[in-house]
């Protein structure tokens, strides 16, 4: 068979001739490696009904054209157009779950096959496994890329209009998995999410997918990235600068969605000494990606175990300070634990050795910080009263 290409532009220069021959050479094996994936896409395109993925707005001219073919009068066609427009509006509102609850339920009963969601929770289908709700807080969720369960749909107040296959998958047989490169990562770090799309077990190539993100405490989803599946149906999307816990899932335009996967960010916590006053040493802790009001616990190394000494809260500057009696704390190691919240995981600071004997044992210098911390109110932990008193900061 002819390749269908015209004669290439000729050149009288041998070098250019070589160049053109190289550019127009027959396909190499690595260039034709995606043959099976292309054939799969071709078959899938033939299988799909042609209305799949077509927006509601497109239905009107098509139906008007059909009406014209049937010889319907112009007035009747106008009425039909108005009805169709109203129907399209209702359908769009139903998609967005913007209708009153009873109307939404009626719309669901009429347009369920088109993916209109119900306002009433429905029992999961027997064949679909229910994914457990990922725990919040400091415990990281180990996401499984092989969980083919049904993903919960975004809430009604969600910002993403992407369809979900929770109730009525438009394309049955499609399975989309997701896995995170890191289930826990340092705050402000980057993570990568990989997924695989299959249709009845065969990889689906060339399908655009959205990576949706729901930040901790947020009700809605927003797009965090997009990509196209490769020849093996795989996709990998990176997300930079994650500063709080979040849940992710992949979503396709035909209603296919992956399970949700949660990642936990771990803020970096620093502890340093900031001078001494009247027989006390001041220890300051800071966590840039902690939130004001987050609990921090000062711990002292006792033998081989860490014991709570005092608790405090991060102020608006993401800092807290502790005053430690110098005499009784000399030679002791301290650290701070930032407790996990819904927005981030728990984190532990560096150790600080009280400076009285630091030079004698050759410990590394502790960087002091000149900035005055904001007002904090550390208080003694009732259950772990220290062996020596911890005084509140004078400027509290």
């Amino acid at each position, binding site marked *: *068979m*002819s*390749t*269908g*290409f*015209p*004669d*290439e*532009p000729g*050149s009288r*220069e*041998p*070098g*250019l001739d*070589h*160049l*053109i021959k*190289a*550019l*127009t*050479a*027959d*396909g*190499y094996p690595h*260039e*034709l490696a*995606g*043959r099976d*994936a*292309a*054939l799969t*896409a*071709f*078959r899938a*395109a*033939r299988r*799909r009904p*042609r209305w799949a993925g077509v927006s509601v707005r497109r239905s009107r001219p098509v139906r008007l054209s059909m009406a014209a073919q049937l010889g319907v009068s112009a007035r009747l066609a106008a009425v039909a157009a108005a009805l169709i427009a109203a129907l399209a509006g209702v359908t769009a509102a139903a998609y967005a779950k913007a209708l009153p609850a009873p109307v939404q339920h009626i719309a669901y009963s009429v347009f369920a096959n088109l993916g209109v969601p119900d306002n009433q929770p429905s029992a999961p289908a027997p064949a679909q496994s229910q994914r457990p709700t990922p725990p919040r807080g400091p415990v990281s969720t180990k996401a499984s890329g092989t969980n083919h369960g049904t993903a919960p749909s975004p809430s009604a107040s969600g910002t993403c209009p992407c369809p979900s296959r929770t109730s009525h998958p438009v394309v049955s047989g499609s399975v989309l998995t997701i896995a995170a490169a890191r289930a826990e990562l340092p705050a402000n770090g980057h993570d*990568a999410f990989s997924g695989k799309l299959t249709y009845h077990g065969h990889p689906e*190539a*060339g*399908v*655009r997918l959205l990576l949706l993100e729901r930040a901790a405490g947020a009700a809605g989803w927003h797009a*965090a*990235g*997009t*990509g*196209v*599946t*490769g*020849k093996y149906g795989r996709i990998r*999307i*990176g*997300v*930079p600068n994650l500063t709080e816990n979040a849940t992710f899932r992949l979503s396709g335009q035909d209603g296919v969605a992956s399970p949700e996967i949660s990642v936990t960010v771990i803020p970096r916590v620093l502890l340093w000494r900031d001078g001494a006053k009247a027989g006390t040493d001041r220890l300051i802790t800071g966590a840039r990606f902690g939130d004001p009001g987050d609990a921090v616990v000062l711990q002292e190394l006792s033998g081989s175990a860490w014991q709570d000494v005092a608790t405090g809260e991060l102020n608006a500057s993401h800092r807290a300070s502790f005053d430690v009696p110098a005499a009784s704390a000399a030679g002791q190691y301290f650290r701070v634990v930032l407790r996990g919240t819904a927005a981030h995981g728990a984190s532990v600071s560096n150790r600080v050795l009280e400076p009285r004997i630091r030079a004698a044992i050759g410990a590394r210098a502790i960087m002091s910080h000149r900035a005055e911390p904001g007002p904090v109110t550390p208080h003694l932990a009732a259950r772990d009263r220290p062996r020596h008193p911890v005084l509140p900061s004078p400027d509290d």
Partner: protein
Amino acid sequence: METDSGGFDEALARARSGDEAGFLLLWGALQPRLLRYLQVLGCDDVDDVASETWLQAVRDLHRFKKGGADDFRAWLFTIGRHRAVDAARSRIRYRDKVLTGQVVPQQVTVGNPVEDEVLAALSTRHAVALVAGLSRDQAEVVALRIIAGLDTEAVARILRKSPGAVRVALHRGLRTLSEDPRIRDIEKVEQ
């Protein structure tokens, strides 16, 4: 420019009717050129963009009623160009990838004849990299004209330029390529 596209037209008609063998003939003929064209455009995820191009092509194949081989090639490469632009925008938006240009690898083979070395270096990959090294306009015109095999009018429509501007860009691009030292080495060997 003569176009021997009878078999291609037949394969296109078969593919439009849903025949897999016809589609595979189209794909086998166009996929390598599509990949090379996307490489010239600077895509760093050429396979993905090509996959997306074919996906849209097969989805809309039943709507393609323009004509034969030449029109189908122009249509396919237009889709590929749009998808490449989308991919580049996506990379910029989400910063998950960095758009990088093609780098011509240096091959130094001590002891081999100059002719072998130069000819080996000028493989298809290196030829694509040479074209990608042109200015954006010239590279795309050369790619569409030579790699995709489109005629001047089709290239002008895709790039929204006048046919005269396309001819000028092609001429300048080929002249720049002919002045490349690696091309000149080939000419010396040939002479």
